[in-house]
């Protein structure tokens, strides 16, 4: 072998040249992989309940808080925000149900659903929010009446589905919660009014007044004044239409 080549092959400089050649290969590989990006899901599919139980390592509350924070902040990506219309609301619904399994006492998920995720530009997605709030509140309407009201509100105002709003309002009206105000019982009347069923609205309020006057229910003076005004104004309208209120 040529002594010069032998000298270079056995000196430390060979390693420097080998390092340089592999570094060049690394630059080449970087260029090829530059456009390979991780798949980013706004809301990925929810895991099954066994996976969630395993991930909790026995501490459901800790996992609940971590996943709730993730749900709250999903879409907050790299100096930008994603419009709610781009979210997959069926996955969102699944996540909300999973998180309820971890902690059914916290108000965090229903709050996120009612106050944040209901503001989607894609109005039809609200049906998932309403479905979640309805199922959440139905576990104990006396305790969770507020969320059933939120579902009713979203159905009436956002989704503009008066039939669905009425269904939810009638469910809300049967609550016996001590802290629930009287308007939770009046809501079906207001929705019936909007649907053009003034007669039924009149009857609902009249029944309420009868219950209060018979002592079955307690109402504040201002609530009674409002209901009497409601009855009187509907009575005048019904009489003008030559309709007998007794036939409602």
């Amino acid at each position, binding site marked *: 072998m040529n002594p010069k080549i032998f000298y270079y092959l056995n000196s430390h400089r060979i390693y420097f040249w080998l390092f340089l050649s592999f570094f060049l290969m690394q630059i080449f590989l970087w260029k090829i992989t530059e456009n390979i990006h991780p798949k980013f899901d706004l809301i990925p599919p929810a895991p099954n309940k066994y996976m969630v139980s395993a991930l909790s390592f*026995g501490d*459901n509350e800790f996992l609940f808080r971590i996943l709730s*924070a993730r749900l*709250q902040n999903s879409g907050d990506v790299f100096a930008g925000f994603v419009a709610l219309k781009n979210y997959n609301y069926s996955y969102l619904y699944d996540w909300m149900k999973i998180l309820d399994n971890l902690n059914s006492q916290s108000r*965090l998920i229903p709050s996120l659903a009612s106050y944040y995720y209901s503001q989607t530009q894609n109005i039809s997605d609200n049906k998932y929010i309403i479905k979640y709030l309805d199922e959440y509140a139905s576990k104990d309407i006396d305790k969770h009446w507020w969320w059933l009201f939120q579902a009713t509100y979203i159905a009436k105002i956002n989704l503009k589905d008066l039939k669905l709003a009425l269904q939810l309002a009638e469910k809300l009206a049967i609550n016996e919660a001590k802290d629930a105000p009287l308007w939770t019982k009046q809501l079906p009347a207001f929705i019936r009014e909007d649907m053009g069923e003034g007669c039924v609205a009149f009857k609902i309020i009249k029944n309420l007044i009868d219950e209060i006057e018979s002592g079955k229910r307690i109402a504040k003076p201002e609530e009674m004044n409002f209901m009497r005004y409601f009855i009187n104004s509907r009575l005048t309208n019904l009489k003008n239409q030559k309709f007998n209120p007794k036939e409602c």
Partner: protein
Amino acid sequence: MNSIVKYILKNALRDKIYLGIFLALIVSLGLSVFLGSASLIEEQITTSVYLAGSYRIIIAIGMILFVCLSIGKAFENKEIEFILSKSISREGVVFSYLIGFFIVSLLISIPSFLIIAIIGKIKYSGFFLWAISIILENLILISFTLLASLILKNSFSAIFASFAFYLISRLMGIFVLAIDIPKNFIDAKNNILATLLKFLSVAFPRLDLYAQTSWIVYGIEKINNIEIIFWQFVIYLPLLIFMSFHDFKKKQF
């Protein structure tokens, strides 16, 4: 025995275990307060939960590393042989190490309990139970780590074994949930791995029932679990201690 306990406490000071873990606790405090304040509602509750959950993990990891590395160093530097040359029984040596490590874990745990009690929004009855269960969990973990360090020659093997023990014990709930005992031999043969896992679960404590952060927030809901925690501790700790005694007594130096 007192001198071994004092030696371990001074060892922890020299190895800066207290400083290291306190720094980790402070960083965790900062992160928990920040993440909790970002929550839509229930900010203080979220902070309490993050604090409690992270402190549990930090103390567990810190104690595993300290116990394994201390025992490994003690064997390498022939400290164990030196102690055994004195008039102290082998059981006494193991017990002293256990007490020493337990006091170190208490010295680390108490400030973290105080931080959670002061900063978090807690239910005191649930918090008290949570704190007790953390102490019991640490005792079980320290005992197992001591046993692993005595049996395995290598510190790193003992560390990995202890982490694996902790993880599997905390996953035990899902194992017993997802896997049923086979009804017959054919069922067992068809699900051999699941069956083995089910029977293996006998050897691990139910650490998934310990230190639930929901107790801090919502109070105690299931009284049965408290009894299970107590009996698990009463049965499992002596089991580990006697195994440690057995292994240490038959060791040749």
